[in-house]
């Protein structure tokens, strides 16, 4: 009984139901795309899955075969307009490079530089160590899941209130801030509007013509979701590259855009 709770909690939820198994093969029905995203924690994880499926040792990695499978997989996701993390594409490029190298006759000089295939194998091995450590860690007894602490209600006690003061304005602004956080967990919108980076650059410049500094979160709309964040971020980078703005990050991880025009 303990165990079922445990596994249920660890597996991704799709439409409220836990998925407990990995997809059977490469071809995943469109409605399970969300599952893929959660099933694989990244391209390394996907690659390890493909290797395991072939039942081979990492060291005997047949790059040519794996590359085809991997790219097939990526194409499928692409065809379904699945917003792929750039890292998946980088991995596809790496695999393709290794594959093409293998087809070329080997040159003695090449052995001097690091072989991309052995570099990839090393990375995969390193990743696998932490992946299996994390699987073990996920099964370790955890508070509020496998065991609970015991507490009793306090007797009547007097709490001195030397400390906290908070104003109603602070309450309102904190609440507003929470509500306007873009939902980064929102997976993908089916019919999103085209957002142009060029246009966004213009908008940011307009804002900065009136004020010197603006926080990153204020240059985007909540409703634009992840896509809006990406477009605005690209726009900020462009502006920084061209020397229009300086990007500043404070401790809370919020980024600010500071105009360099007036400086």
């Amino acid at each position: 009984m303990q165990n079922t709770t445990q596994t249920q909690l660890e597996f991704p939820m799709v439409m409220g139901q836990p998925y407990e198994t990995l997809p059977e093969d490469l071809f995943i029905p469109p409605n399970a795309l969300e599952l893929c995203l959660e099933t694989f924690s990244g391209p390394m994880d996907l690659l390890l899955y493909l290797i395991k499926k072939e039942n081979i040792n990492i060291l005997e990695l047949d790059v040519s075969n794996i590359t085809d499978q991997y790219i097939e997989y990526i194409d499928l996701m692409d065809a379904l307009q699945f917003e792929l993390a750039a890292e998946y594409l980088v991995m596809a490029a790496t695999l393709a490079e290794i594959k093409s190298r293998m087809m070329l006759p080997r040159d003695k000089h090449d052995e001097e530089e690091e072989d991309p295939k052995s570099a990839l194998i090393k990375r995969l091995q390193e990743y696998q160590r932490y992946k299996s450590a994390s699987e073990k860690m996920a099964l370790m007894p955890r508070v509020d899941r496998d065991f609970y602490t015991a507490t009793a209600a306090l007797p009547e006690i007097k709490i001195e209130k030397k400390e906290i003061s908070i104003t109603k304005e602070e309450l309102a602004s904190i609440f507003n801030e929470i509500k306007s956080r873009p939902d980064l967990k929102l997976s993908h919108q089916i019919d999103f509007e085209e957002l142009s980076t060029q246009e966004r650059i213009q908008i940011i410049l307009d804002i900065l013509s009136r004020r010197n500094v603006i926080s990153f979160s204020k240059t985007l709309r909540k409703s634009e979701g992840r896509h809006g964040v990406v477009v605005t971020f690209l726009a900020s980078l462009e502006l920084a590259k061209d020397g229009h703005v300086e990007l500043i990050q404070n401790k809370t991880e919020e980024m600010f855009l500071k105009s360099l025009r007036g400086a």
Partner: protein
Amino acid sequence: MDIKIVNTVEALLFGAGRPLRLSEIRGLLESDGLIAELSDIKKCINELEQRFNSSSLEITEVASGFRLQIKQTYSAPITHLWNERTPRISKALMETISIISYKQPVTRGDIEDIRGVSVSTQSIRSLLERNWIKVTGFKDAPGRPALYSTTKEFLDDLNLKSISELPELPEVDEGSNDQVLSEVI
């Protein structure tokens, strides 16, 4: 009474973090395959009362059920414990209290949904202890999660006569961010 049932009742009272009704306890036992009448559970509670007799705890019955409570005799050192705590109000605590203020009554799950990250037992407890929030009911959902609302004391501390004096929020969810953008679009 069967020691296993007595101990399970005890575990429930220590683990619930809120008072439990006899009928709730019966349901929870049942889900664990233990069958007991309400009168049996009452007997368990009596047995536990015996068990705690010479300890620092007692079982009290309050409006929403039975709970384990620390005897009043031991209040002094506990007062020190709770007053010693560093008086820093964390960002997480601020967010939690602002959500409760505007959305009350809410469950812990509701707060987590809005914040997008989990809310620690410690923050809820700390707000309860300083009497800024109280349990005003239970949601009719699995586990009967507690519904939290702000207290009169919270209003006093903020110098408000009623919760309606809190600043109004923009109608639509899209908060102040859009206003900046709309200026230029």
